[in-house]
């Protein structure tokens, strides 16, 4: 433990790791259930980009788990600290806004990747998976996790009660992740929905991530990278300014 950043990161990782049954095992099990149900129904009926459905679905479930758990980590940690009041422990020390942001976001990425890795390990046996261009896998997992981790920081700061956070999660994060091609290729959608999907940044995270496995995707991975990187840059600037303003943290 050296500076404020590394300690805060360590504390945030330790926090979820101490309750890993709830923060890691449970989401892995949920993803496994999705896989069992959807592949049971659709395997053999659907092929996407020439890929068997189960194989197509696995990377989608993995990145969805990364994204949802990254969001859950930073948002629930912050709101718990606010509601219980122990947020003062991180507000009193000389931790800069950037350190604060980086630690929460990076811990969210770690949680996302641990859960995502767990989902991958648990589902690997169900279908043959290639790892065509593995660096894309890594890039989109990290950037996607960072984006949702930042959104989690924003939501955790904004929400005053747990149900406000749940609303943020249910009405924004869940629809964005579900309606972005986890379970299907957007090319199979009617034109209107296809167009709409291209405005959903989560679509690019999933599409780019999947590209790493199969080497084919709906959009070019470079376009996806550009969209995702731009989103992260905007969110970073926004969140840093929010922290600097003291919004809801420093009255």
């Amino acid at each position: 433990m050296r500076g404020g950043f590394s300690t805060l990161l360590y504390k945030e990782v330790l926090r979820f790791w101490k309750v890993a049954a709830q923060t890691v095992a449970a989401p892995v099990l949920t993803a496994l259930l999705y896989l069992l149900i959807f592949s049971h129904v659709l395997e053999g009926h659907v092929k996407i980009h020439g890929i068997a459905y189960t194989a197509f679905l696995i990377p989608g479930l993995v990145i969805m788990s990364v994204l949802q758990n990254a969001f859950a980590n930073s948002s629930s940690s912050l709101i718990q600290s606010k509601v219980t009041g122990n947020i003062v422990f991180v507000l009193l020390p000389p931790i800069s806004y950037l350190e604060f942001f980086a630690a929460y976001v990076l811990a969210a990425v770690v949680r996302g990747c641990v859960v995502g890795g767990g989902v991958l390990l648990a589902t690997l046996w169900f279908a043959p998976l290639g790892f065509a261009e593995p660096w894309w896998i890594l890039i989109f997992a990290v950037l996607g996790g960072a984006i949702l981790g930042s959104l989690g920081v924003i939501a955790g700061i904004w929400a005053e009660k747990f149900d406000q956070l749940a609303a943020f999660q249910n009405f924004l994060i869940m629809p964005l992740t579900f309606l972005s091609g986890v379970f299907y290729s957007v090319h199979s959608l009617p034109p209107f929905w296809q167009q709409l999907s291209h405005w959903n940044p989560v679509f690019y995270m999933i599409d780019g991530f999947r590209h790493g496995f199969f080497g084919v995707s709906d959009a070019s991975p470079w376009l996806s990278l550009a969209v995702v990187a731009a989103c992260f840059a905007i969110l970073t600037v926004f969140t840093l300014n929010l922290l600097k303003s003291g919004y809801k943290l420093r009255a």
Partner: protein
Amino acid sequence: MSPAIRIEQVSKRFGSVQALDRVGLEINQGEFFGLLGPNGAGKTTLISALAGLVRADSGRLRVMDKDVQADYRAARRQLGVVPQELVFDPFFSVRESLQIQSGYFGIVDNDAWIDEILENLGLTSKAGANMRMLSGGMKRRVLVAQALVHRPPVIVLDEPTAGVDVELRQTLWAFIRRLNEAGHTIVLTTHYLEEAEMLCNRIAMLKAGRIVALDTTSNLLRRFSSHSLRLRIDRSLPDDLRAAATESGGWWSLPFDAFDEVETLLARVRAAGCGITELEIGKPDLEEVFVRVMQGSPSGQD
């Protein structure tokens, strides 16, 4: 030597509540300073502004000559705050909490000092216990410990003895006194006025966000409180004595400045034919000062 704390014209409003109204205050290094005032007077708000938990609407605050906004990182290193609310992180043990808190201040290996704090606060046997398992008083001790991990030159304790047993009060004050003797500046808020009277060399009283009294403890006692002859008698006090006296619960209280006045007072009581059933001498106390300052009768503003 720069003051440990310099507060200039600080105001803070929450909606319609003026929590702080142009508060100005300087606390010197090495002082044991008391911040007193009724509920809602603004004590916690002032401490929070100092710690950067609350942003003042106007005015400036400095800790050891570091501005709490412009130079917040340096200012926070100088300051250890024991918050009023009993907060804790349920995920960690006592030792983990203290190690993590040290890390936030960039202190790598702090175990020797952590052990010393634990020892001094009677927490050694609880070091491995999870925070959730501790009693309220024990949690309060950990809050004190957390404020001290980075050996701050300025230590602010916001009602550290609320809901705490006699033993901890005594160990806590012994420890804080040692820190004060070692050069740490101490700022304390409490509703136990005898505690403040015993410990603080200087006191500020806040009322509705304003400082209404600021002086050394001994000056405050001298100005707003006096010795008194307290009597229980078998009939009513003669009129000439009654003018200066106050009565409550069957006790008459006659203020005096010098002890040789006692004889004269007693002689007059006897001369009026009153039989004395009980008698005691009351010393000046901070409670009387507090009540009189808050009633606003004499202006305490220097």
